[in-house]
């Protein structure tokens, strides 16, 4: 198993990076519905895919958070994206495979992925 010494090395690497990160704000919020309905429908891999993809791209202005039931259990896994000055966008029936498209198109290039939204599903 990985050792505490490896964690210390990771800490030292991260502390150097944190000095850069502290100067930027988490102004975009990605909120994943993680109630029983969301978890049963597959929200865990979706959440982890967002965390991994955002970290891979080094997006410092995005915060991924979890919430309870978003209210339409049959459309889970659901994710809300909140950007400053924009209307909230709700994505539905997500899978981990759809996440890189949302990150690249919406979070980076500010283009909503309309075919994945609640408006397209309903």
């Amino acid at each position, binding site marked *: 198993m*990985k050792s*505490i010494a490896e964690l210390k090395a990771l800490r030292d*690497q991260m502390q150097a990076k944190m000095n850069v990160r502290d100067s930027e704000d988490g102004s975009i919020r990605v909120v994943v519905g993680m109630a029983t309905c969301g*978890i*049963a429908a597959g929200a*865990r891999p979706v959440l982890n895919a967002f965390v*991994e993809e955002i970290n891979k791209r080094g997006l410092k202005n995005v915060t991924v958070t*979890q919430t309870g*039931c978003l209210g339409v259990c049959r459309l889970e896994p659901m994710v809300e994206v909140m950007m400053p000055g924009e209307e909230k966008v709700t994505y539905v029936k997500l899978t981990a495979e759809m996440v890189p498209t949302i990150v690249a198109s919406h979070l980076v290039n500010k283009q909503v992925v309309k075919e994945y939204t609640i408006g397209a599903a309903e």
Partner: protein
Amino acid sequence: MMPELSLNILDVAKNSVTAGATLIQIGVTADTAADQLKISITDNGCGMDEQTVRRVTDPFYTTRTTRKVGLGVPFFKMAAEMTGGSFAIDSRPGEGTAVRAVFGLRHIDRMPMGDLAASFCTLLQPNPEVDFVLTYAVDDHGFTIDTREYRAVLEGLSLGEPEVLAFIAEQIREGMRECGGGV
């Protein structure tokens, strides 16, 4: 219905976070000779009174106000009982709650454990201020992950940082592999 036991663990342990727990202990112990898998989730949260404990296994009871159903605990209970196992909750107001489930290890209806590392890290990610202890054992082989030890090493860095979560997930997966591939 959850497809993996690790998703049940995630769902039930999230109740502990909601209950204001600062320490949540998750135990997964398999005994192949006894053909038993025991899962426990113990917290030091706000606890429940006797009347509430009796009602939490009822799918039509919830503390939520947005819905009239609460399926997390009933799902977990059903998953245990359909393998010939058992389910119990002990709770005291102000002291905490312990949820214990016993499964028939090789029962055909026992769900696979699934990605326990992902569940553990999904719990940590939004709750870096809460401490979690995972104890995992298959017969005589086992390991413990205690976030209090990591916190001391990280010197103020958040346990919810993606790099830290990836480290912990890999540590759990390695530990499970060393226990004969896990259950």
